[in-house]
Structures are given as structure tokens and as C-alpha cells.
């Protein structure tokens, strides 16, 4: 189960509506206890994919990861996942998402349709890397 405060979901939606029709995203910081994850902060990160591909691709730099992981470690939190948008497509992981994914990491996908956040779903890659399992997303 993934616990997400409504205020943080609101910040995610506002950001991803702003990047529409391109993809946007960022990191999820929080606490993890086995399968249960509580998200306590979100950090938008600039999409560095080639501009003409940003309508269906999103990427961060390794330096973004290092900076955010160091911040999480310093705050006693964990880098528990990341979120990104699927403009005018379902909030379901693509094959491209799966090929670039890690287990034990929360992937929140927001479908943004016509500039409005329409659906928010959470996923996790299975240990054998074959599929994403949908996670129950509990809004607090």
C-alpha cells in the first residue's frame, strides 16, 4: 500500500498539468516498512529528454538522482520512488517504463488528458522484472 497525502498529490497534478502536453516528473521521498510506503515529500525534476520527444518520454540526469538520494539519506528518509505523466494516455506503465525500472521502487503515473490530471495510479516492478504490479494508493 502506498500512502500519499492529498496535498502532495495536488502538487504533483499541478506540476504535470503545467508540463502538458509534454511529460513531467519528479522524485518521491518517504518511509518504507516492507511493502508499505508513506510518501512525505515530492521533488519536481526537469525533463531532460530531447525536446521533440518529451510528449512521450521523460528522463532525469544521474546527478538529479545522486542529489535527491543524498538529501533523503541526510533527512533520514528514503528515495522511495518517482512519478511521471502520460499525456493523453492511460496511467499504465509502458514497455519503455518496464525496461528502465527497478524493483522495490514506487512508480506513480498520472494520466493528463487535455491538460487536466485525470487518473493517478501506483505501480511496482516485480522482483523478476517481468511485470508491474499495481499498488493500492491511499490518499490521506
Amino acid at each position, binding site marked *: 500500500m502506498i500512502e500519499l497525502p492529498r496535498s502532495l498529490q495536488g502538487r504533483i497534478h499541478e506540476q504535470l498539468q503545467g508540463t502538458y502536453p509534454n*511529460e513531467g*516528473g519528479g522524485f518521491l521521498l518517504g518511509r518504507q516498512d516492507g511493502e508499505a510506503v508513506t510518501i512525505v515529500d515530492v521533488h519536481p525534476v526537469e525533463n531532460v*529528454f530531447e525536446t521533440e520527444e518529451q510528449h*512521450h*518520454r*521523460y*528522463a*532525469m540526469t*544521474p546527478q*538529479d*538522482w*545522486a542529489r535527491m*538520494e543524498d538529501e*533523503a*539519506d541526510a533527512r533520514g528518509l*528514503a*528515495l*522511495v520512488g*518517482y512519478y*511521471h505523466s502520460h499525456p493523453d494516455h492511460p496511467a499504465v506503465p*509502458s514497455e*519503455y*517504463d518496464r*525496461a*528502465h525500472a*527497478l*524493483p*522495490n*521502487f514506487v*512508480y506513480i*503515473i498520472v494520466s493528463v488528458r487535455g491538460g487536466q490530471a485525470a487518473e493517478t495510479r501506483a505501480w511496482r516492478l516485480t522482483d*523478476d*522484472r517481468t511485470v508491474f504490479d499495481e499498488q493500492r494508493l491511499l490518499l490521506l
Partner: protein
Amino acid sequence: MASIKIPTPLRQYTGNNAEITVSGATVGEALNDLTTRYPALRPHLYDGDQLRNFVNVFVGDEDIRFLYELDTPIDDSTKLRIIPAIAGG
């Protein structure tokens, strides 16, 4: 011995240790030592014998792709870091 910082999602395979000391004279040997001791890590770092294309390995601030890749030499003071490239679509 050199050390490797493990990315958060993969720490479950290293007994929740964030940093592991490793032996070896090159990055490749260090990663082999790491994945021999923590074999569950290997499928998430390698596809066959090749590092997965979204797995970045840094020596200090330098990506090994811009050095000598897995043949990049290291010494006891080297700090390695595995950083997944985040990409979605």
C-alpha cells in the same frame, strides 16, 4: 578497499547497507566482487554480461562511460556509486 554506494531500491539485496566495501583493481572486478557476495543484485545491474543501459556507474563524479568503462582502474581510496538513469515514457 574501495567502496560502492548502492541505490536505495537495491539496498534490499545488500542487507539494507548503503555502502559496501569491495576488492578489485578495476570497476569490473569491484562489481564482480559485489555481485558475487550479493547475487540477487546481479539481474538488476546486468543483462547477460553487459551492464544494463540504465545503470550508470560513477567513479567519484565521473561516469565510467567517459573513462575506460569496466576496465577503469580503481584503488583503495576509490568511491564508486551506482546510479540508475530514470526514464519513462
